[in-house]
């Protein structure tokens, strides 16, 4: 064995640690693997089958041993990567990153490999990016932990569903209504909870998320309760629908453009709609960060008392952060409703809030690029691992733990200043010479 390969951790210690790990694994394996309930004629009985327990011990022992032996060489191999910086040229390309990414996303549905599944996955990812962009304002910038963001998502979705089915609005006015309704609820929510901070704020937002879901679930006459709302209007392009047959007095996209009807067209259009919304949201947040309001959000996260000492009204700053974040959540909800054509309360449980928060935290609080990478990771990775069926959530959890170990601040944890004096100086000098 390669015992001398790791002089810092002697082989004996590796052996001992592997032994301890194996013992723990076997102790855990007794209830997990050794006992199982079987439904026999006389009822449910517990059967002991301890065959797998030593096996689990052996696997963990070997695994821990190999890990221990590889740790030192691995660390040495990875060490030079830590000091790696992108080349200077990459910095100049930075402003083009966003537009290039949007362009790449826009051509995706027209690429040869893009089938229904890929477009659908892309739409889901974009919905999550939009949601996380919104939550990133509240959590990442303003530092207000929100565990009930799915509530705003739900309010947007249900506003869209109800205005199109009950009031027969089109998709576009319903979209606006969804965003505004979410924003309005955010203002109403934020007013009573402004005095809370940290953990208490998190608990109240958690409660708000659950209350919203439960109200939707129980308000049968309006929301249809657990049956949900169906028949939600699909998006239209200047009044053109993407149906096979035109509705009464309307026209379809296929009729007017002469392009043969294909069921994917509707999907592609929806994908492009959510892409445009997400791009707009990302651009808006990028600009807001550079405005007084965005700086006040960040200042609030850093020190609320200092904010007050400078004449900033923390109430207004918090309300604006909640409202802007919720606006984006509401828009995402609306697109979600229009894509499914159906909404029900199950889609907006705590898992949804947790997933969106995970995207923000994984990406690195306050980082837009981080949100995009993390959303792709969270949406696409479980899909790729679909063939592992039951184990995909396990793999997902493992990946999350690994990231938290190696990148505790999120994938992109650095903060870019919103303004720099050095850049300003260069600019004013350039203006003076021209």
């Amino acid at each position, binding site marked *: 064995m390669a015992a001398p390969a790791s002089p810092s951790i002697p082989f004996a210690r590796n052996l001992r640690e592997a032994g301890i790990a194996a013992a723990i694994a076997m102790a855990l394996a007794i209830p997990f693997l050794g006992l199982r309930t079987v439904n026999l004629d006389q009822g449910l009985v517990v059967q002991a089958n301890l065959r797998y327990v030593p096996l689990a011990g052996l696997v963990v022992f070997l695994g821990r041993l190999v890990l221990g032996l590889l740790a030192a060489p691995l660390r040495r191999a990875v060490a030079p990567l830590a000091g790696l910086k992108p080349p200077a040229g990459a910095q100049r390309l930075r402003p083009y990153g966003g537009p290039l990414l949007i362009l790449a996303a826009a051509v995706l549905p027209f690429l040869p490999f893009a089938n229904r599944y890929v477009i659908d996955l892309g739409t889901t990812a974009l919905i999550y990016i939009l949601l996380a962009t919104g939550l990133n304002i509240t959590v990442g910038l303003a530092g207000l932990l929100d565990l009930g963001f799915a509530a705003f998502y739900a309010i947007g979705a249900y506003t869209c569903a109800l205005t199109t089915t009950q009031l027969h609005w089109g998709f576009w006015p319903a979209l606006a209504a969804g965003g505004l309704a979410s924003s309005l609820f955010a203002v109403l929510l934020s007013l009573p909870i402004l005095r809370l901070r940290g953990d208490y704020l998190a608990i109240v937002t958690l409660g708000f998320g659950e209350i919203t879901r439960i109200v939707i679930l129980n308000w049968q006459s309006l929301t249809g309760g657990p049956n949900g709302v169906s028949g939600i209007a699909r998006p239209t392009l200047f009044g053109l629908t993407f149906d096979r047959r035109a509705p009464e007095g309307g026209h379809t996209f296929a009729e007017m453009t002469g392009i043969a009807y294909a069921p994917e067209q509707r999907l592609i259009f929806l994908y492009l709609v959510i892409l445009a919304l997400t791009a707009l949201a990302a651009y808006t947040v990028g600009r807001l960060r550079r*405005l007084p*309001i965005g700086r006040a959000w960040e200042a609030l996260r*850093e020190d609320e008392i*200092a904010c007050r000492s400078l004449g900033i009204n923390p109430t207004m700053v918090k309300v604006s952060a909640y409202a802007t974040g919720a606006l984006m959540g509401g828009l995402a909800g609306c697109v979600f409703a229009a894509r499914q054509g159906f909404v029900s309360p199950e889609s907006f449980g705590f898992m949804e809030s947790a997933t969106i928060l995970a995207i923000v935290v994984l990406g690195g609080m306050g980082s837009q690029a981080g949100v995009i990478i993390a959303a792709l990771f969270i949406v696409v990775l479980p899909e790729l691992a679909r063939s592992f069926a039951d184990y995909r959530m396990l793999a997902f959890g493992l990946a999350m733990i690994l990231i938290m170990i190696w990148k505790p601040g999120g994938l992109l944890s650095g*903060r870019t200043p919103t303004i720099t004096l050095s850049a300003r100086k260069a600019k004013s000098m350039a203006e003076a010479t021209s």
Partner: protein
Amino acid sequence: MSTEPLLDVQGLTMRFGGLLAVDHVDLTAERNRITALIGPNGAGKTTIFNCLTGFYKPTAGRLLLRHPVRGPIELQKLKGFGVARTGVVRTFQNIRLFPSMTVLENLLVAQHQALMPQSAFSFAGLLNLKGWRAAEDAAVETARDWLRRLDLLAVADEAAGNLSYGMQRRVEIARAMSTNPLLLCLDEPAAGLNPRETRALAELLVGIRVEHGIGILLIEHDMGLVMDISDRIFVVDHGARIAAGTPAEIRNDEGVIKAYLGEPDADEATTGTESP
């Protein structure tokens, strides 16, 4: 110079449950003057500051600010951020910067009140209109001026939290000055500064009070600094005001010597050694 002081505090009382932290304190602060508030630890100086700047609501008393534009304002009726908007701006004993934001950003946040309407509550800013860009440039210039005065230009783009203690103190003063205050309230600005930095601070304070026509109210334990630059000194002990006067008067006040400056010889205070 108007005959009426900029700030007129009458009968300020602050009670925390059974504890009488501040007991009927009267004090005044004038424009173009440095007023110092001294006293032993726990005398209630910072409590007075917190009442003045709206962080505490005083149990009783009247805090009258004679605002040159808005007329007389009773500060005790305003909320914390409202007091700062009248131009009474403070720094903190244990520095409160926005640590992960850069020094320049800290100074821009300080100008929030002016910039917010200029960005048309973000709408003009979102569209990057010309009016907004001009307003932002002006704000950056204001910040640049203060950075230059406090010798911070070189670290303008550094995260404020990464600076040395002395620099952070200067950033906090620069940030307070960026708000264009009427009355600058400094809570122990010289704490943790070395003698050279303290001298620079003294020069700065003496310079800006006249140049900007502001009043400066100062809590400080460095007697050398206080005696050098103050125009008027108020001494508090156990929440009550025990003396008021010019540095010369305070130095020879028996009550003050007994309570604060120290018994043995008065010239210990004049040489600037720390108080007991």
